[in-house]
């Protein structure tokens, strides 16, 4: 063998390495694509495959395919492949990139896929600046389904659903998605290119590579829209279709770099690794070591047949839910079974609020308190709403001077008192809930004070409020005892 200088032919353009050698996922004709002769998708596929080759990212690439004529991206690209539902590739790609930030995630979409059914997904992925690359193949029509109109169909262009040609009056104007997306702040690179002639093709190839390279460099969201011929649906020979891109389509969709922030964009650093596995229960606040021991030993009476069913009701802002929560927390601290169920939803907005609390010695069946043995009515509407539900021999604690005549019941105990006023005298009318809770605790006579303190500390973060709440609880206890002695408040 000689080793002198010789002139030889060496391959300079050949099938990209990131294409499969043979398309074995395809049922038949594994040596050629499924595209029609002259289809722009094939050209775009080649450009993308070449970009992947040139950037050396075949092993890192995840290609999210669309629904449309290019649904079979996985037949051809020898990369990780995922096929998305119609229009959802940006959502799928978002999650893949976020969970696998080291990978290169490329979404491939048609114009129906991206600009119609998937318009929300692409808009928001772009607006969040997802670090993905989107290849947007605009052939102005729904090709796969046989040529129905797309948002990108040109004015006057005939389709099977605009048989007389698209009219602005009825179908609106061609949607300029790339221009729309370029108004957003997050995308780093958006360009519209075409496959209309050699020059355009060369530029399209550069743009696609750039859009992928931006992701390799960690810069952010990039999208390339490619005006692409569909000879079959357009009913034109391939060469004519190519010229039509140039001569007609481009008039509506001018080729341009619509946004380029690659210079300013700061590469995103890879996220730090997550915490060690053994730290997770602590981080979630569910590790036993972080939980209080409780004061079950201090419980005041045998709990077996304890069954405290409390309904708390009042205006929003009166601390109805907190009252219930303190009670439930304290019950748990004392080793009881507890449940707390809030009213939620529109009624909160209209200003009233209520919750169900159960404390019991045995497992609690229904957490709903339909027939409370204690009703804490923090205002009159609540009293009117719930007084009749109180179990005979139960208690009504009412935040008011006296029970209105119509709400009087002979078979229940009543402690009616201006709890809000008492609270105001203590320093803040908002601790009326704790004054009432104090009275309730005295009536129920089961929870150790240590449990109440523990519950308050857990739920009330502000030290000043804890102190105020404690005074309020004490005052509530007194109120009940005074009432016990004098019977003054009893109904």
């Amino acid at each position: 063998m000689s080793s002198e200088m010789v002139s030889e032919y060496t391959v300079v353009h050949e099938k990209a390495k990131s294409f499969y050698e043979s398309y074995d996922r395809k049922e038949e004709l594994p040596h050629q694509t499924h595209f029609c002769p002259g289809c722009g998708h094939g050209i775009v596929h080649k450009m993308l495959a070449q970009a992947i080759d040139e950037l050396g990212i075949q092993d890192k690439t995840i290609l999210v395919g669309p629904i449309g004529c290019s649904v079979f991206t996985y037949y051809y690209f020898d990369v990780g492949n995922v096929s998305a539902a119609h229009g959802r590739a940006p959502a799928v790609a978002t999650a893949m990139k976020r969970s696998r930030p080291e990978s290169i995630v490329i979404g491939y979409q048609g114009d129906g896929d991206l600009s119609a059914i998937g318009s929300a997904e692409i808009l928001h992925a772009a607006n969040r600046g997802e670090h993905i690359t989107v290849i947007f193949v605009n052939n102005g029509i729904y090709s796969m389904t046989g040529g129905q109109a797309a948002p990108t169909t040109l004015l006057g262009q005939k389709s099977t659903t605009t048989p007389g040609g698209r009219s602005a009056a009825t179908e609106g104007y061609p949607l300029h998605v790339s221009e729309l997306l370029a108004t957003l702040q997050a995308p780093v690179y958006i360009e519209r290119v075409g496959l209309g002639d050699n020059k355009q093709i060369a530029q399209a190839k550069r743009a696609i590579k750039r859009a992928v390279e931006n992701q390799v460099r960690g810069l952010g969201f990039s999208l390339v829209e490619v005006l692409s011929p569909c000879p079959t649906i357009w009913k034109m020979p391939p060469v004519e279709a190519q010229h039509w891109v140039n001569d007609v389509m481009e008039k509506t969709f001018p080729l341009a770099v619509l946004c380029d922030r690659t210079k300013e964009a700061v590469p995103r650093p890879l996220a730090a690794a997550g915490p060690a596995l053994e730290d997770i229960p602590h981080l979630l606040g569910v590790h036993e070591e972080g939980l209080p021991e409780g004061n079950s030993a201090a419980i005041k009476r045998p709990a077996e047949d304890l069954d405290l069913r409390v309904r708390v009701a009042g205006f929003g802002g009166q601390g109805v839910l907190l009252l219930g929560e303190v009670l439930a927390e304290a019950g748990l601290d004392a080793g009881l079974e507890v449940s707390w169920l809030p009213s939620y939803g529109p009624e909160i907005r209209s200003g009233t609020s209520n919750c169900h609390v159960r404390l019991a010695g045995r497992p609690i069946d229904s957490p709903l308190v339909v027939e409370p043995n204690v009703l804490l009515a923090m205002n009159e509407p609540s009293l009117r709403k719930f007084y009749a539900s109180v179990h005979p021999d139960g208690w009504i604690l009412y935040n008011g001077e006296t029970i209105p005549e119509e709400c009087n019941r002979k078979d229940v105990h009543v402690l009616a008192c201006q709890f809000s006023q008492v609270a105001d005298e203590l320093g803040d009318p908002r601790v009326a809930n704790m004054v009432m809770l104090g009275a309730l605790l005295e009536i129920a006579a089961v929870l150790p004070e240590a449990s109440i303190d523990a519950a308050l500390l857990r739920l009330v973060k502000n030290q000043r409020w804890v102190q105020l709440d404690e005074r309020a609880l004490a005052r509530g206890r007194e109120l009940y005892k005074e009432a016990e002695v004098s019977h003054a408040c009893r109904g």
Partner: protein
Amino acid sequence: MRRQLMKGNEAIVKSAILAGCRAFYGYPITPASEITESAAECMPKTGGVFLQAESEVAAINMLYGAASAGVRAMTASSGPGISLMQEGMSYLAGAQLPCVIADITRGGPGLGNIAAEQGDYHQVVKGGGHGNYRTLVLAPDSVQEMADLTALAFELADRYRNPVVVLADGFIGQMMEPVEFPQKATEPRQPDWAVLGTAETRGNLVTSLHLDLNESESHNLALEAKYRLAEQLETRAEEWQTEGAEIVLVGYGIIGRILKAVTAEARAMGLNVGLLRPITLYPFPTAHLQCLTNTARVFVVVEMSNGQMLEDVRLALNGSIPVEFFSRVGGIVPSTEEILNFVRIQAQRYLPAVVPEEERMVNV
């Protein structure tokens, strides 16, 4: 073991993360929003991804992406949002991707209201999406089960490579009860079928497209085989005082809790009542129900929906025993009292033995 007081909606998230879930995509909706909020707080600090999606459609497709990338992922919503996720669920099932979806139901149809209802049974248990697929459905009745069944949901999702729904209602999501969690977090696994963007997984493909009809049929049959296996292995139900029960109450979720109170009161009245609470709604605990026909004279199904689970109970019993139905709809919770009345009426119809002495003598 020390327990802590927690909302059901929060317990779901903590349990999910402990089970190795590292991605949450959601969209706010009452009464499920706390799940999304809690995930927003917990996911990032435990090394996971949280994102509020632009819609439930996007959220479920993000789950599709995360699951494709081999990550344990979850979302949460309620009626209207679950309706929007149905397309995605069909794709997830078709592509055999595991994930967990929490449905904290509210009133319907349409905008309905936000009160707790059980009207999502059909769309979740029967599969509201297209094609021959099922979702496995777990129905917790307490905050503890919200935690436990969420962890189980991730296991089942992986085992069957299928979406699993945790179907709870507004009450169970919103209420607080004591709960305890496993003290060790599960290592996030990395399945070999996932697409990770690595050399080893380059040949992997996630798709639900099967153009070849024979291949498509085999795929459908393979899915079906998984569901049959789940029916054999995964059915769960709680039996409560069912031994010798002549009247068997059947209800899930919050209704199961109410029916426990009904059972206690009915028994106090001398009625021989028991409760079967399905925990898996799909696969449905058919065999559990059938076992109870030895003693049962009547089954009483109670729902906060218009007879959706009722159909499954009837299918399970196949006409062997009468099935009666009681429900409140529109977000109203049936009270213990009204259910008890209904049960008493059924007792009079089906259990002549409990008719008071005097009446029986008249009859003779």
